[in-house]
């Protein structure tokens, strides 16, 4: 018997994804061949590792650890710089386009101005979307607050990027703020075409109690994976309420199973980001999650993702 027709496709800022699972930035998104492999493993979209104007080596190891309930990381935004990354993305684009899998180029910078420059330099690779990672320290600012912590600064970054590219822009927000709703409103008003949320939570610290030393070389690191999912769900709900239905959200944070995708759709996500779950289930996580999602939809009689989208909002 044929499987009942369930349509997993979704539209993100006018870009079609064959399924809602997107590889999250910073996980495996460095080499174009590996990005293509993740797409073959079932991802509906691929986000590259965040790149900056200049290369960055990041922090010493340990940078990424599995603490049993998720990951903790302080990679230090290592990346080969936009000049190298633009070539990697071009090559990724050539491999992904024939598979019908969109490419999302993640960028960041240390100053508001440089965000525009990186956006301009990355655009010739023609990624389908640009994701602006504002969850990094702002060196323009005396207090080194991250860009995503302040509605005004986040909107300035968004404007700068929009001025420098014609590619649709997702702004990736941090959960480590006091008023996520206002920040979401501000970036949408400044021209963001969509929002990705959330970046890693925290930061946190894990100690080795024998040597009394922190396990991460950078001492503190962001939390991701299953442990943060309930917070991610709440953030997506807050953003959805703040910005209204026409702005798509790539709901990210702890998504590990098909059931988790359903939860994100129910609070209004257009797609989901998957990062840390790769540590648990391997690259095959994308195929598995899509199968689990499909099984849920068949069992409950849903034909397409829009049948689920936002359906829990009246209750939360």
């Amino acid at each position: 018997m044929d499987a009942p027709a369930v349509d997993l496709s979704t539209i993100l800022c006018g870009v079609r994804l064959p399924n809602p699972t997107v590889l999250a930035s910073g996980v495996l998104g460095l080499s174009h061949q590996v990005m293509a492999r993740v797409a073959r493993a079932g991802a509906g979209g691929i986000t590259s590792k965040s790149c900056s104007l200049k290369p960055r080596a990041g922090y010493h190891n340990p940078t990424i650890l599995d603490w049993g309930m998720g990951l903790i990381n302080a990679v230090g935004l290592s990346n080969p710089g936009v000049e190298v990354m633009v070539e990697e993305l071009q090559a990724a684009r050539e491999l992904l386009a024939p598979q019908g899998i969109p490419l999302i180029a993640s960028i960041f910078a240390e100053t508001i101005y440089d965000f525009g420059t990186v956006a301009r330099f990355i655009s010739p690779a023609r990624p389908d979307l640009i994701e602006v990672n504002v969850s990094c320290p702002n060196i323009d600012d005396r207090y080194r607050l991250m860009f995503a912590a302040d509605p005004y600064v986040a909107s300035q970054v968004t404007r700068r990027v929009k001025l420098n590219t014609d590619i649709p822009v997702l702004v990736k927000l941090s959960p480590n703020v006091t008023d996520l709703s206002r920040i979401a409103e501000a970036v949408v008003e400044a021209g963001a075409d969509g929002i990705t949320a959330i970046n890693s939570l925290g930061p946190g610290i894990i100690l080795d109690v024998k040597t009394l030393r922190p396990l991460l070389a950078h001492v503190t690191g962001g939390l991701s994976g299953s442990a943060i999912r309930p917070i991610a769900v709440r953030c997506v709900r807050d953003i959805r309420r703040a910005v209204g239905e026409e702005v798509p959200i790539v709901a990210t944070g702890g998504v590990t199973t098909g059931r988790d995708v359903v939860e994100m759709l129910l609070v209004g996500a257009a797609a989901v980001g998957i990062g840390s779950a790769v540590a648990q289930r391997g690259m095959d996580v994308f195929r598995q999650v899509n199968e689990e999602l499909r099984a849920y939809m068949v069992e409950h009689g849903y034909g397409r993702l829009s049948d689920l989208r936002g359906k829990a909002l009246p209750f939360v």
Partner: protein
Amino acid sequence: MTLPQTVPIREIREETRTIRTFVLDVRLPQAEPGQFVMLWLPGVDEKPMSIAHPDPLTVTVARVGPFSTALHGRKVGDALGWRGPYGRGFSLPEAGPVLLVSGGCGVGPIYFLAQQAVERGLPTTVALGARTGLDLPYVARFRVLGVELHLATDDGSQGERGYVTELAAHLAERATEPPTLYACGPERMLVVLHRFCREQGISGQLSLERYMKCGFGVCGQCAMDGFLVCQDGPVFDAAQLDGLRDFGAAHRSATGRRLPIR
């Protein structure tokens, strides 16, 4: 849970003027030859190291840069962290001869594999190479193990004069039954052995190194073409390496930029 566990160093052995072996106070009986641990020096760094013996956990480390130099400065009783074992190791054939080739500090996993081959009763030949006789590690230990041991040094101060790749090719060609070849060492050596295996139709397994951060298939830092060396490797079948752009040609630095392999 794969957080680093800190344990005291139980024993330190001087192998050569640049290579030392560290025995940790922990047992990893399930580890396979070719697998690695992430070894953590609190306050310094954490790097992948092949397992030279699983029980107790032993690594053999060449002094080449900041991390390995700091490690060489540690004393018995000092704390080291480890997590793992990670990666795909070597696998021995059911029967038939095996030829194990080690260059420089690639000796750790080769020794572990040789032990397993001898235990299983496989005819085992080991070709050990280094720059000079003073740089050859583990010679006495291989002798005790009872393998057929051949040595090569660049300056001829011990064993054959020349590269261990030439010695290995000679040993393989001379064998009555074609051996399965296993190798760990500098990538230049692995490139030569890869070509030899493919031309001669010999099955081979080669252990590679790439810059690693997570060690468990998340960061993508160790990418070599479409492979993740930490998870798909570090041991690869010779056939898997056919036609790769980066094998023998490029590795990634800490930034992720591809740099030529010298």
